[in-house]
């Protein structure tokens, strides 16, 4: 299969008609789960992910940390989220994503403010179409802010990769499967500190620099979408 598929046409457009530096449309909504302390729903292209955040005393008691909170993200894919049914339950990939998302969120949350607490972040992937770890993280940070947990910054993430030998932004499923590299990255936008960076595949140093600068630009827009999502719950229309 590899080699036969053409991911970028002669006009420089990709399979779904995007330019090399164009994102898929992103939509975030907060307060989608009434009972949760904070929640968010993200549609990133065809990805659909729902996130619920609960803040509570860590249980069992011996897991409590006396001077700071612990963040427990749990990434889970629904059986119907991918083309071929995903076998339910944690596997190597979902456990890895849970770990990297927890760690990325931990660096944004001011953990010392909530000793003994456990911040549960439940991430349910309803539909997956490449880039779910970054979409999950982006939605999670909105949900955590919605829960009113003190944070240094809103974590924002983006992916780039290499398809048909070109660096492209926000890989689609086919580009992810048949491309040469996939680079998810997440930062704290105020300081530009990197909280998540993974590389799957081969890229040269120049390609990597090109990818990061492209992602940095895109993240400004995503950051704006996150803020608008938080605000939309609180802008009240005038009755008159």
């Amino acid at each position, binding site marked *: 299969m590899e080699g036969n598929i053409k991911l970028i046409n002669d006009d420089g457009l990709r399979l779904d008609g995007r330019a090399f530096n164009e994102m898929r449309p992103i939509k975030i909504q907060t307060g989608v789960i009434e009972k949760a302390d904070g929640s968010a729903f993200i549609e990133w292209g065809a990805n659909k992910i729902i996130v619920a955040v609960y803040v509570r005393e860590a249980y069992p008691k011996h897991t409590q940390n006396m001077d700071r909170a612990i963040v427990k993200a749990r990434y889970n894919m629904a059986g119907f989220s991918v083309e071929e049914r995903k076998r339910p339950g944690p596997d190597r990939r979902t456990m890895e994503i849970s770990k990297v998302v927890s760690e990325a969120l931990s660096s944004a949350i001011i953990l010392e403010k909530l000793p003994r607490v456990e911040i549960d972040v439940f991430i349910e992937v309803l539909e997956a179409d490449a880039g779910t770890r970054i979409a999950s993280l982006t939605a999670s940070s909105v949900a955590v*802010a919605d829960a009113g947990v*003190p944070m240094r910054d809103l974590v924002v993430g983006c992916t780039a990769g290499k398809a048909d030998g070109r660096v492209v932004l926000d890989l689609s499923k086919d580009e992810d499967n048949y491309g040469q590299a996939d680079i998810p990255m997440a930062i704290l936008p105020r300081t530009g500190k990197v909280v998540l960076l993974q590389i799957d595949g081969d890229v040269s140093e120049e390609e990597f620099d090109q990818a990061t600068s492209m992602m940095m630009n895109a993240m400004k827009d995503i950051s704006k979408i996150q803020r608008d999502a938080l605000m939309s719950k609180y802008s009240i229309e005038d009755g008159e």
Partner: protein
Amino acid sequence: MKCLETKEIVYPGDKIELNDLKPRNGLYESNSEYFSEYFGVIQRGDKFVDIAPFNSPYLPRVNDKIIGKIMDIGPTMWTVDINSPYYSLLHINDTPWHVNAGDLERYLNVGDFIYAKISQSNEIRESWVSMKEPGMKKLETGQIIAVKPPKVPRVIGKGGNMINLIKNETNTKIIVGQNGFIWIDGDIENVNMAINAIKIVEKEAHTIGLTDRMAEYFKKLKGEN
């Protein structure tokens, strides 16, 4: 679609200009600059700048009068849910009754609500409540609703004007716990009216001129009947 005028809104990580005021709640320092910890509104007082979050967990503070729900019964203590990530404890010596150890169910059972005061709290946010204060009691009748803890000051209003307005207009008895639990007692229609009013206040807490608008809301409601 016109939006109501709101206070200045900030997001986590937004830089806050202090303008010679001192930073207080909801700000963190980095390289001698200050940034918001929360998604909320800026409140500039005479001396301090605070960030009032739209939502945040309730953290027990000594002398807060709170409404709690009995969660568990031990030999000498009740565990109390105070609408917070942290549970609180009520010891038998801190009740107005003479309770014998092991005989706690007779006074307060799981699911009962109490109005109590936080008597002690420590740096790891363990807290103890006491009912040995005038006015503290078991809440026998009525209904309990929960609002987000940061909205409690707005539900009470300046000098209690908002909650008094709701009490008078709906003819109900209301106790607002600092932790966001609110006890309402009265005729069922009146209670429902009060709940609706409180929900509006909670939703529009960050807008300007809310007390006047609520007075108008009640006028309209009364006019229709």
